[in-house]
């Protein structure tokens, strides 16, 4: 683990050569010493991580390393057995997902959680209505204002043509995007995405991620995302955290971390290139 990388990350050029603003502010999310074991399995074994405002942080690591567990802990779905989490300078440990959503922490799921009996449009509109807190039992969900807002949201994700399709009829890639769209509809400041591109057809993957990144940047959302595709990580992450057996094995900008021989061997499963002098 190269601790020096953390500072180095903050002035790295980002996608499309645009230099992202320096992030000297206080971290938006700050986890310290998170521990959680399921029986004998240490899904979190002392996680320390700061997420800076505006950054895109990728989490990589083998199956069962505890990536989803980290998201579950920071969104209030699981309570760590030890440690602390601060969001925006406030301790948030023990708060429910519902409360944390209200504070601006959104998430998408490894297995998309859509309302399968409803159309994509209704799914989006429900999220918009939820944010508005306007749960009037008499006003139609698809009233013009929310329908328009939901359509605009779907349009940003390239999902508009699927608006009238029932969610359970979508393919995996569209389901993932719709799942993220619902999280974005709530206008979070921080979004945690669990494998946003798994299930997206290889040919579409880059364009899907580009769309996603554009939407999130436009909305000024800080993002943490679990990702298995190293090309995606390399192109879109400001920093990458390598998870291994409930611990962070490496943290830094992708240029450095993804060249680390130990990471290549243990996480990506490639023997370090011997051609290199």
């Amino acid at each position: 683990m190269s601790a020096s990388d953390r500072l180095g990350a903050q002035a790295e050029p980002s996608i499309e050569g645009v230099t992202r603003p320096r992030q000297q502010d206080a971290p938006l999310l700050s986890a310290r010493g998170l521990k959680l074991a399921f029986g004998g399995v240490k899904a979190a074994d002392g996680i320390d991580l700061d997420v800076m405002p505006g950054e895109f942080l990728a989490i990589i690591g083998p199956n069962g390393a505890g990536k989803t567990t980290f998201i579950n802990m920071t969104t209030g779905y699981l309570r760590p057995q030890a440690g602390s989490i601060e969001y925006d300078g406030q301790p948030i440990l023990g708060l429910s997902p519902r409360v944390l959503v209200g504070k601006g922490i959104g998430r998408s799921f490894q297995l998309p959680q859509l309302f399968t009996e409803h159309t994509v449009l209704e799914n989006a509109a429900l999220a918009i209505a939820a944010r508005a807190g306007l749960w009037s039992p008499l006003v139609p969900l698809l009233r013009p204002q929310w329908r328009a807002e939901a359509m605009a949201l779907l349009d940003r994700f390239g999902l508009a043509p699927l608006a009238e399709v029932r969610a359970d009829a979508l393919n995996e890639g569209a389901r993932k995007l719709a799942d993220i769209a619902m999280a974005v509809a709530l206008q979070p400041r921080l979004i945690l995405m669990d494998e946003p591109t798994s299930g997206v057809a290889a040919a579409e993957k880059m364009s899907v991620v580009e769309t996603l990144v554009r939407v999130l940047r436009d909305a000024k959302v800080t993002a943490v995302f679990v990702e298995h595709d190293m090309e995606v990580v390399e192109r879109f992450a400001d920093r990458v955290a390598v998870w291994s057996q409930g611990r962070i094995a490496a943290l830094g900008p992708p240029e450095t971390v993804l060249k680390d021989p130990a990471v290549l061997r243990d996480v990506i499963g490639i023997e370090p290139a011997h051609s290199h002098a």
Partner: protein
Amino acid sequence: MSGSANSLSRPAGAAPARSLGEGLPALLGIAALVLVAWAVPWLKFVLTIALAKGIAVLGILLLLRAGQVSFGHAMFLATGAYTVAFVAPFQTEALLLLPLAALLATLLGLAVGLFVVRYRDIFFGMLNLALSMVLYSLLEKLYEYTKGTDGIRVSVLTFAGLRPERETQEWLMFGLALLLAVLFGLLVRAYLASPMGRALAGIKTRETRLEFMGVSARRVLLFAYVLSALMGGTAGALVAMTSRHVTPQLAYWTSSGELVFIAILGGAGSALGPFLGAAAFELVRVYAAAAVADAWQMILGAVLLLVILFAPGGIWGMLAGRLRRSA
């Protein structure tokens, strides 16, 4: 629509019902009811009871949308009915008794609801059943107040201060039940199209997502539950005023089962389903009981079996499908 997976928990008629207008079938249904009530006077009573039960079944429909089945909703019906029976000696005005009965059932619904919405599926169903049986035993055992299984006769009522003769009174009750059925039908329709109503299906499929949208799934279900209690109480008041006699049988678990039966028979896809189901149920009961006194339950059972096997969208689902095809 994905395939034709027939599942009870899913309102299979939902999609066709939405694309098909419900207004015309509703108007035709109302016209048919009035016509039958006028042509066959003794059926007026049967149809009034059917309308009342349809209102209670609307509440079952709401819970079905959330994938929950209450086997105890007769407790709200009984609450409404006994409220009328208890208060009628002191206050004979039907137009006051009715809202009072609805209010008490709503309050009971809120108290019970706060407890049962923490549970799902079989636990939800059984808790409702258990609580309704507590009410049943109270009604049966507190003889001093309830006259036990003999029940209570409801004293003669006044309508807006008047005491109409019998025939007029029957028409008044029929009209009142019809009016309330239409109002509650419209209310439920609007509710099911609202975010609150649309979120009910989220309880069945994705409760986690609801929570991650900042929405309390329990509150979503509680609202539906309280509304269903309100409608149950209204139905009970109508039943008591129409039949002029209340017994603990109203709260018995078979009465709750009957409401679920009617909901499935009529179809959960539309607010019209409960009324189609209730009318079919009461008519089959009356005619089957007259034709084959001992076997009418068997006939009803067979009807339900056929519906589940061949028309999971219920009578409404069948009608909607047919209308759509001929359109």
